[in-house]
């Protein structure tokens, strides 16, 4: 497996017309780190993620992923989307292979990787021939995650991946994501509006302030890993950290 890489966001500005979306945002994501970005709506967190992904250009400043200065979507990153972004006309298997196909990975290896990714996200066996519309939201996002993993990225960029999924399923998915992450040690940047999610998953939480989006605070999350046991969620330390984030966010509203 390829080595995880870090991400340097340096002095990024972004404007939409006359609206300043991001002002002088700098974040250094360490290789193999799980970092969350949280902030009030309109703080530009999704915009920032898209700039890191190379889907949006920044007005000034730069983003470096590994050794590459981002000018467009690159091979190190793959993305997981809030609305899953699955092709409705393609089966689960075809969807999982889609990213790898676009990256030009030959058919045989592609099928093999897809198989592995499908197994990794717990979809093996029954669902591979199904169409997305036949799956629940949680299942659909597993497909989205498998598609991202099938290109064997060094960086996973996740845009509120569990926002539209019910709470019980979301917790299972969060644990499964932690499982995948600890197996593969990818660098993860996750945008979320859930304080619990940010604290539960992350090594660090970046709080953005709105209009224009700026880095307001960076919090360390010194909770022990692995966290999937259930004890972490019930711990006083977890509650205190979530409350810390809330106190910061409350003043920003």
């Amino acid at each position, binding site marked *: 497996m390829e080595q995880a890489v870090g991400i340097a966001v340096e002095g990024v500005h972004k404007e939409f017309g006359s609206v300043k979306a991001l002002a002088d945002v700098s974040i250094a994501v360490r290789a193999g780190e799980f970092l969350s970005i949280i902030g009030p709506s309109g703080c530009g967190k999704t915009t920032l993620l898209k700039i890191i992904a190379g*889907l949006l250009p920044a007005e000034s400043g730069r983003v470096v992923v590994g050794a590459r200065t981002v000018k467009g*979507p690159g091979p190190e990153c793959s993305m997981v989307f809030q609305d899953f972004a699955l092709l*409705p006309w*393609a089966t689960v298997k075809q969807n999982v292979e889609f990213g790898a196909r676009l990256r030009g990975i030959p058919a045989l290896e592609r099928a093999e990787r897809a198989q592995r990714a499908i197994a990794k996200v717990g979809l093996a066996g029954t669902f591979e021939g199904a169409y997305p519309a036949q799956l629940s939201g949680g299942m659909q996002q597993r497909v989205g995650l498998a598609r991202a993993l099938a290109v064997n990225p060094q960086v996973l960029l996740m845009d509120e991946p569990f926002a539209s999924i019910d709470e019980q399923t979301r917790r299972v998915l969060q644990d499964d994501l932690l499982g995948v992450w600890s197996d593969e040690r990818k660098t993860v940047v996750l945008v979320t509006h859930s304080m619990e999610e940010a604290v539960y998953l992350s090594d660090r939480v970046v709080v953005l302030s709105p209009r224009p989006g700026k880095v307001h605070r960076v919090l360390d999350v010194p909770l022990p890993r692995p966290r999937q046991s259930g004890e972490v969620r019930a711990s006083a330390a977890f509650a205190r950290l979530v409350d810390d984030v809330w106190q910061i966010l409350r003043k920003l509203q």
Partner: protein
Amino acid sequence: MTFEPAPQSGLGKVEALALVALLATWEIVGRADISMFLPPVSQVAGAWWGLVADGTLFGAGASSLAALLKGYFLAALLGVVLGLGMGRFSAVRYFFDSWVNAMMSAPLSALVPVLIALFGIRGTVVTATVFLFAFFVIVVNTLTGVRGTERSLVEMARSFGAGEAELFLRVYLPSALPAVMLGLRLGAVQAVKGMVVGEMLISLVGLGERLVYYGNTFLIHELYAVILSVLIVAIVGSQLVQWSERVLVRWK
């Protein structure tokens, strides 16, 4: 992959029942002898068989179908191409938008004399009329389909490095396919309309010419027989497109 046929519900039976009821009503009203313009369906069927037997329907039908198929396939091909272009490139859209909109709402029959002036009184006019009637609805539906492509799918494909050609082939095109097929179906119905209108106006060839002739000579049974034949052509055409739609758009 296995393809399950649509479950046969009671709907087929209800449709058959409705058809029988319609034919029965027609027969009863016809036998009541209210008007010479309302003959019973059994006599129309007899006249239809007569037209089949003496080759009239096949002769006229063959000429009509040839024009229909030529005009329709040309409209389908060029309509989908223009619709895709307009959907994908705003410059193309701005250029053609007002033309297409004007033609969508224009009474197209009024343009047939122009076509006659252009092509002369020949079968080509019918092909051109079919094309004219079917083309715009295919363009507009294709355009709408491309424009309705989910932005997040485009973004997803780009994030995996898709270029313009791949975006088009793997995202826009399949995403627009249901709308394209709807346009082709509506276009098929329009094409039959165009065929009849064109043939009636030039009064020279095909089923449309027979309609005019039987209408003018008060051969009412034969008139109805031809009308039914046209209906059958329209229904069969539309069903054919619908069938290919089901094969192509399995995921819905």
